[in-house]
């Protein structure tokens, strides 16, 4: 049997520098699985489709690939816009959407969003962890009172996602939140950073993507804003974001979605040995194990594990259909033992999902750029469920009423 994975990527255009390593990691992992005999003997087939990060091209790719190879196993839209559009289509097609580290935050609620899997963390997790880190630095939540935190964000749904959480926290702890939108694509940010210079926020959160990130760092340098006070989301914390800023980005930190750059992880070594050494590697060798590469790799891993989990229930060595894969994804139980076996020791923490919790983990760390590479500079944090959960629930409920959906019943969860 074979299992087909569509791979929506962007290897050209404005976002290519960020999209390419992700795609390389994703594909390399699939190749690794195949090199080891597949998923319990089920070979993975896959096909890349170039979206150019455009929603309509993404929809076209989705439609083109969803029926191939006996039906798509799952889809990773790899863009917030496409996620929104596909969220409406996936239920009809019965295809799980895996959006590891992006997508809509409220889709963590599996009771409403049956087919969405924002595994490992949503933007609310990212924002919460960043604030926790800052609070810890300052010496406690109470020290945030009267402080000023600026959010420099990509002016789009993606950039606006963290705002509700930040507002919630700012009400709670009494810090001032300054919102500074940057018009896409973000090549011109002088006004933004002059504003930062003027209002002198104690911390600045960076919610950018693509060229916006490096530009922000360069403008921060040009206006003398200390990079040590800048914290990025995980889409603003990879090599392409800082590479050409070099020393100028020294001291800048970003939250990571569990992993960072992991050149020494076992799984990376395995890929180098079993895929690249055989001349089957997808990208340049020296980029294997970089941050975005790892993100792609882990996304693929989660999908594969979802299928394997489903096989445990529905029959090993068989082809899994969308419904079954969905069940697998919402019953993931990646404990430490499994992670070690996968070569992911030290890369991530255990993940376990459920019918209601489609996120599976809300742990994250912070890493910083030292001018040459990313290094972890914090311990693990867990996002505060007591804040996030009600927000997720409320937003998801609203979505459900708007769409006239009913919450899934416990029986439905069994299917």
């Amino acid at each position, binding site marked *: 049997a074979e299992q087909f994975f569509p791979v929506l990527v962007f*290897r*050209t*255009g*404005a*976002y*290519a*520098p960020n999209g*390419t390593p992700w795609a390389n990691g994703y594909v390399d992992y699939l190749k690794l699985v195949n090199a080891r005999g597949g998923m319990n003997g089920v070979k993975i087939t896959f096909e890349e489709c170039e979206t150019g990060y455009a929603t309509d091209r993404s929809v076209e790719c989705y439609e083109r690939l969803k029926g191939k190879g006996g039906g798509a196993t799952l889809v990773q839209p790899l863009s917030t816009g496409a996620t929104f559009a596909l969220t409406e289509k996936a239920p009809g097609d019965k295809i799980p959407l895996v959006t590891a580290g992006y997508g809509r935050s409220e889709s963590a609620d599996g009771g409403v969003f049956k087919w969405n899997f924002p595994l490992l963390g949503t933007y609310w997790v990212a924002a919460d962890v960043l604030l926790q880190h800052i609070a810890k630095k300052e010496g406690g939540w109470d020290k945030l009172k009267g402080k000023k935190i600026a959010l420099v964000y990509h*002016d789009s749904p993606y950039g606006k996602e963290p705002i509700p959480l930040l507002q919630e926290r700012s009400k709670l702890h009494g810090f001032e939140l300054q*919102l*500074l*939108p*940057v*018009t896409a*694509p973000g*090549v*011109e940010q*002088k*006004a*933004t950073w*002059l*504003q930062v*210079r*003027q209002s002198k926020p104690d911390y600045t959160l960076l919610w950018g993507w*693509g*060229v916006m990130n*490096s*530009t922000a760092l*360069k403008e921060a*340098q*040009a*206006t*003398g804003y200390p990079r040590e006070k800048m914290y990025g989301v995980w889409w603003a914390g990879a090599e*392409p974001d800082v*590479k*050409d*800023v*070099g020393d*100028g980005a020294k001291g800048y930190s970003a939250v990571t979605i569990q992993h960072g750059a992991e050149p020494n992880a076992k799984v990376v070594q395995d890929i180098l040995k079993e895929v690249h050494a055989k001349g089957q590697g997808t990208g340049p060798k020296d980029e294997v194990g970089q941050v975005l590469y790892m993100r792609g790799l882990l996304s693929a891993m989660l999908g594969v594990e979802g299928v394997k989990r489903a096989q445990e229930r529905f029959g090993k060595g068989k082809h899994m259909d969308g419904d079954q894969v969905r069940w697998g994804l919402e019953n993931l139980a990646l404990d430490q033992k499994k992670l070690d076996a996968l070569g992911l020791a030290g890369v991530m923490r255990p993940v376990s999902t459920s019918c209601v919790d489609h996120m599976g983990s809300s742990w994250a760390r912070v890493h910083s750029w030292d001018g040459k590479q990313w290094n972890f500079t914090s311990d693990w944090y867990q996002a505060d469920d007591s804040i996030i959960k009600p927000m997720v629930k409320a937003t998801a409920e609203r979505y459900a009423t708007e769409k006239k959906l009913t919450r899934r019943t416990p029986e439905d969860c069994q299917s």
Partner: protein
Amino acid sequence: MGPFLEILFGGLMTGMLYSLIALGFVLIYKASGVFNFAQGAMVLFAALAMARFAEWIPKYSGIANPIVVNVLAFAGAFVVMIGVAWSIERLVLSRLVNQEGITLLMATLGVTYFLEGLGQTLFGSDIYKIDVGMPKDPIFLLEKTFEGGLLVNKEDLYAALIAAAMVALLALFFQKTATGRALRAVADDHQAAQSIGIPLSTIWVIVWSVAGFVALVAGVIWGSKLGVQFSLSLVALKALPVVILGGLTSVPGAIIGGLVIGVGEKLSEVYVGPLLGGGIEIWFAYVLALLFLLFRPQGMFGEKIIDRV
């Protein structure tokens, strides 16, 4: 006062950079009546060539001196741009003589796609670095007068100076030489220009080469600011209101327009933006240009639109 001056100054600097790109548009429009949609792609292409040459030259020839490398890379990239200009004339423009502006605009769109594809194929689609030794850190002036000093960005300052020099040169060229006159004639009426023996192909190769040069300079400056990657081609969009505000046919217009837009958008974002939730600078530039055009439909320095029976 201090912040205001800083913003004003920052706006002027940004405006200068817009002008540099606007200049490329004006040049080609003025000389052939073509609104060159491919200007952004040319900036990207030139910058990519420069960045990769600067990477490849030390690797394959062993020359290590960064100045020599940069000069060689720049020269190489210029040669590439001349090649681009020549091919565009040969394959596109010469076959579309005497067609309407909108057709030519469309053709440059085709060129855009082609250059974007070719550029990424030849030079890659990652982020590359151009390092021509531009200083990145800020300097502070008048620290006595203002608290915290007046922030000035040296990189911007150099860039603005270069832009100003190029604009001055080109303005002279258009106004004072016979070729300049011929270029304007071509823009007015391809066929009549042909009929009196102005060799369109030569003219176009020259103009597109010059525009290629301007694109290269813009690419180097913006590239050293932003890093060289695909987004560079999007910067061209920012130059659009500049060209139109300044007047499509005016070289000095490009510069004044750039300054006005630069200052206008920065001041508006900082002082008006917060009232409206921010992010207004993009439309503000256009509304500014629009209001101005209501009073002067040909832009600040554009040639008067002829309207006569």
